[in-house]
């Protein structure tokens, strides 16, 4: 059967690849969701950073590492603005980041056209610094005869790091508290605002990492990169056990969510089913996950009187 290929090292490497870039984002988005917020601009921000890397490197003729550093600053600034607006106004992050999402979508297209007169940036591999950047962001390794991309390693590393931060640092405790009840958290002295802003900046930094990976890997970037992905990140985090209401979830769960996503995405063509069914399965998994999460919450909040 086809599933033989699916289970072979090469097959595994195949579905690990989409899971890895999605997983890096899902882990960051999970932290943000545990902290009680959404970031709808996370997907388009991947495009923004990839385009920034491309434009600064090829149009402004800078070293690729300079371009990557500029993209990081841009991402952190956007993350800061998201977090600052959310904590300042008290409006739902859903609305605030929907605003930044739409603005960035327009900016991505407008600025790309302004610089290149087309809707894409290319030739990133002709820029000085590419070899080193390729080694960090897009190298390939041979594992059991299969070609595995370095993004898989980064994904594992980030998952481990996020888990450690969540469970074993003061900041992690503050993330759970801010998402659980930000007023109560502030009352006992948790810097809830700073925690929220840091989480938005972390999500933006993850978007920068994935954006840079895409730019270096593909060497050309379309202006519409990343649009629509923001919901996939949230779906992966929710399948992995994050509550939509905040205060509960895990980085490992979000990574498993991304893994399930990658397996389904490639499993369906392997089974020679119509790929159109993919979104049906995704939606069904999301519903099941939300129902399961609700049970967890009920258990935890059922006060015995």
């Amino acid at each position, binding site marked *: 059967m086809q599933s033989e290929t699916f289970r072979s090292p090469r097959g595994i490497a195949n579905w690990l690849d989409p899971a890895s870039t999605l997983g890096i984002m899902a882990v960051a988005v999970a932290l943000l969701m545990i902290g009680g917020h959404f970031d709808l601009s996370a997907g388009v921000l991947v495009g923004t950073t990839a385009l920034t890397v491309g434009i600064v490197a090829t149009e402004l003729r800078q070293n690729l590492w300079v371009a990557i550093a500029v993209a990081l600053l841009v991402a952190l600034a956007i993350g800061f603005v998201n977090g600052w607006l959310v904590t300042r106004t008290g409006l739902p992050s859903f609305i605030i980041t929907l605003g930044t999402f739409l603005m960035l979508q327009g900016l991505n297209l407008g600025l790309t056209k302004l610089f290149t007169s087309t809707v894409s940036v290319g030739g990133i591999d002709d820029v000085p610094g590419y070899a080193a950047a390729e080694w960090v962001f897009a190298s390939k390794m041979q594992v059991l005869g299969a070609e595995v991309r370095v993004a898989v390693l980064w994904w594992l590393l980030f998952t481990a790091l996020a888990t450690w931060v969540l469970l074993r640092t003061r900041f992690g*405790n503050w993330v*759970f508290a801010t998402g659980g009840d930000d007023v*109560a958290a502030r009352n006992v002295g948790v810097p809830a605002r700073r925690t929220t802003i840091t989480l938005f900046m972390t999500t933006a930094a993850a978007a920068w990492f994935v954006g840079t990976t895409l730019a270096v890997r593909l060497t050309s970037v379309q202006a519409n990169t990343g649009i629509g992905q923001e919901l996939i990140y949230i779906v992966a985090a929710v399948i992995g056990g994050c509550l939509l209401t905040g205060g509960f979830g895990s980085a490992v769960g979000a990574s498993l969510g991304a893994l399930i996503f990658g397996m389904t995405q490639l499993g369906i063509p392997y089974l020679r089913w119509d790929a159109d069914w993919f979104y049906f399965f995704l939606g069904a998994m999301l519903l099941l996950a939300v129902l399961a999460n609700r049970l967890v919450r009920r258990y935890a909040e059922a006060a015995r009187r």
Partner: protein
Amino acid sequence: MSTPPTTPLLELRDLGKDYGSVIALDGISATVRAGEVTCVLGDNGAGKSTLIKILSGVHRADRGELLLDGFPVSFGAPREALDAGIATVYQDLAMIPLMAVWRNFFLGAEPTRGRGPFRRFDAARAKETTRRELAAMGIDIRDPDQPVGTLSGGERQSVAIARAVHFGARVLILDEPTSALGVKQAGVVLRYVAQARDRGVGVVLITHNPHHAYPVGDRFLLLNRGRSLGEFAKADISREELTRLMAGGAELDALAHELERPTD
């Protein structure tokens, strides 16, 4: 207690606070001494919450003075009040329900070990301390890893009180700790209030229930529509008088008269 120290821990002198043109609080004076319970009693809208907010650093007073150990203070943030040793336990907002008891216990004051990027939350010590401190207050929590949401209302309040005492609170402000509880649970909480008092903490107990306030209180501040009806030592007021004053005294008499069956 029998020998009150010369300087009260906390002294309120003619405190007042306005929200726009509304006078929320005016001319409030009271004292809080170490090892004593000062009860603040008042009906809904009497200004109890405003008073808590001033004491706990959420708002600044517009008039009057707040003295800590005899020195005037003014808190701009809850953190400042906490650092000065004034801890507040809010009615519903004391704990994060989805977090484990030990995580809640150390929230905002997590013990750490290691240095630089390896500085981490010392979970083992936090769990151990939580269990020991709760046991010292006579609180039996089966498992410090269980989420606070699975505790009863009384247990939650008790954990919050133990937490404040552990972190060296000299003044403990309790906002309606018994209002949402049944008779038995309320008794449990009042016992921990007495425990905290016996450990030398100055307790401010805010309540609208004179039956909860009287047995544990040493002095009573009565509020009505933002103004003080006076501060009484326990020796100067009986439970009946306290109840009568609380219930609105003359107002209630008039109401009773109005509601009487017409006799013909």
